[in-house]
């Protein structure tokens, strides 16, 4: 039991069996979250530090609650109010945290590959909580948990992802993970936000929102960063909302029992009309709960590996 690697750097590094072990463990952990006494001893005597170089609400909080529910000592560092502002290098900061007896460092960083860079230098396990445009593995795992609760198998299921594909680490992690479990992933967004060669990651590039969503078993919207407009990636919010949003009409093209996901935070009225965000098919709020469950599973399985060494 446990993960093969010291670190969780991305879905690229996980096998299909490891993904399923995380999802199965997360289903159990979810019971803890819904119980009256949210306390286990899975991480008793362990220390967990979150090191975030980018803003975060749900990822950071869910990691902190996950570690606290399991009884670890936890602390957090953000880039403001730390030596990062004195110009300390990432590696020096990470080594400093490592030398304080930290078992797990959960890091979010704006540079792709930053956790891959520090991990080999550290005794602590490194969990990637989002690195640049590369990966956000625990987001993909919570998305997959949300699907797994509704699917008996991922094999042959159609997953549609619409929005800013280029900048999205959520898309990359989902595409890699879902492919490993046999699902079909379709993506669509403005061509200015489509990365070259994405089809070589095993996803289908759709021709339109409708083409992407048609016959989908699950539909995922993505946050459009409004500042992208300044870089001329789309001309206006009105135009984006008209041509690229997941409207009720578009959602109706999916399979009847399909459900809607979004990693949040959502720009209401841009990538999703509020009516869609709140519709019966929306599981967006449940994703948040699953985020805690999946992070409990990941932290537990990383420690399970260490305890066996």
């Amino acid at each position: 039991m446990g993960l093969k690697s010291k670190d969780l750097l991305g879905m690229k590094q996980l096998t299909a069996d490891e993904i399923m072990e995380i999802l199965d463990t997360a289903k159990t952990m979810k019971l803890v979250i819904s119980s009256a006494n949210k306390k286990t001893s899975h991480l008793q005597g362990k220390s967990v530090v979150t090191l975030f170089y980018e803003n975060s609400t749900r990822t950071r909080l869910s990691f902190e609650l996950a570690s606290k529910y399991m009884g670890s000592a936890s602390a957090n560092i953000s880039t403001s109010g730390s030596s990062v502002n004195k110009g300390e290098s990432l590696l020096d900061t990470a080594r400093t945290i490592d030398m304080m007896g930290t078992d797990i460092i959960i890091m979010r960083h704006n540079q792709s590959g930053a956790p891959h860079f520090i991990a080999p230098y550290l005794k602590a396990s490194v969990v990637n909580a989002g690195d640049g445009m590369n990966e956000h593995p625990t987001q993909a795992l919570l998305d997959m948990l949300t699907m797994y609760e509704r699917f008996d198998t991922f094999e042959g299921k159609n997953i549609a992802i619409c929005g800013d594909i280029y900048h999205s680490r959520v898309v990359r992690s989902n595409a890699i993970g879902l492919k490993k479990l046999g699902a079909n992933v379709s993506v669509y967004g403005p061509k200015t936000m489509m990365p070259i060669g994405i089809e070589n990651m095993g996803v289908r590039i759709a021709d339109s929102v409708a083409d992407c969503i048609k016959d989908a078993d699950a539909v995922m919207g993505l946050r459009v960063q409004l500042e992208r407009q300044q870089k001329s990636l789309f001309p206006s919010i009105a135009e984006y909302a008209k041509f690229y949003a997941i409207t009720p009409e578009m959602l109706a093209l999916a399979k009847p029992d399909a459900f809607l996901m979004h990693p949040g935070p959502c720009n209401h009225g841009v990538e999703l009309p509020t009516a869609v965000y709140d519709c019966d098919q929306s599981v967006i709020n449940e994703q948040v709960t699953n985020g805690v469950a999946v992070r409990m599973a990941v932290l537990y399985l990383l420690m399970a590996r260490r305890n066996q060494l």
Partner: protein
Amino acid sequence: MKLILKNAKKYNEDKLSNIYIEDGKFAVEFAEAEADRVIDLKGATVTPGLVDMHCHLREPGGEYKETIKTGTASAAKGGYTSICPMPNTNPVADNAAVISGIMKKAKEADNCRVYPIGAATKGIDGELISEMGLMKEAGIVAVSDDGHPIKNAGIMRKVMEYASDFDLPVLNHCEDKSLSEGAMNEGTVSTTIGIRGIPTAAEDIMIARDIILSEYLNIPVHICHVSTKGGVRMIRDAKARGVKVTCETCPHYFTLTDDCCETYDTNFKMHPPLRTRDHLEAIIEGIKDGTIDAIATDNAPHHADEKVCEFSVALNGILGFETAFALGYTYLVKTGEISMERLIDLMCYGPSNILKLGRGGMNIGDDADLAVFDLENEFTFDKEKMLSKSRNTPYDGWKLYGDTLLTVMGGKVTYEKLC
């Protein structure tokens, strides 16, 4: 000083012969008893001293990465006897005073003939043409803004026109920066690992512009470190029309591809970036058919602090002097792509002709610049044995042929392998 190299196998001859050197020149035979030193090469291959038309020595301003002394020692270890450092120093080599300082330090080090390249525009900021005439008097052999390509076509035209008054070649690093805000080649690998990409189009667009200007003005232009198949194709077509365009490539563009970046290893980060296999093949085709005139190193020393960091933060460039010949020999000659004579054209006569350096002569009376290579035995390249101050090479541990045994510049031994 009289030197005899016995049992030398000149790269373009089959038989062994002795080489006589006197007062820094190749000389007629003299008695062994008169020699100050006799070295038995035991049949090792002798080539003219190599010429690198594109490198970085970092001095002044970047002495923590490399100095003229250590950089030229590193070049000598690679078999180079003539090298051309780029002007992106601090201060920028855009005036005669800085050039004179470089020449003085190079003379003191006395490891290589150093032919500086002056900045094409003041401060390499692409706006005002530099004092090319005064810099030429101080020793420059060409002008370039290197990694800060002149984006304004009107300024590029003026640079080419003014430089031609002084018979100075213009070397351009072709990159339309408006297309290239990334850190590696744009393609499947950059998309998969989430690194912003630099499209081949960024390079091709500026190559096209420079060819058009060269053709229109009938003034030569030299394209630095070509890495794309589009670039090779356009230069080939332009040469066929008689346009005075020349170009170079670097060993990394015929030995490495962007797959190498998958692990975020910053020793594979450079400008232009490593491309895909089809581009690598086009570069080899351009080398074979004569489209590419020179192999340069783009030797770019960087301190560990600038490379042991996040991929997008790391500085661009790799060391090249100490691996260039071995890579060329192993991956071009030994694989049967080109002859040894062609490799020496690319690494000596080609760049010497473009810059009018007159190097590479091996006749009696010519400057005794030569290199001796072991082409028979495989060796393992070890970065810890490099003479550079820096260690940013992607070739550590590579098994290669063509280790340097001896380098002689103007009759002086500038490198010899102690074994």
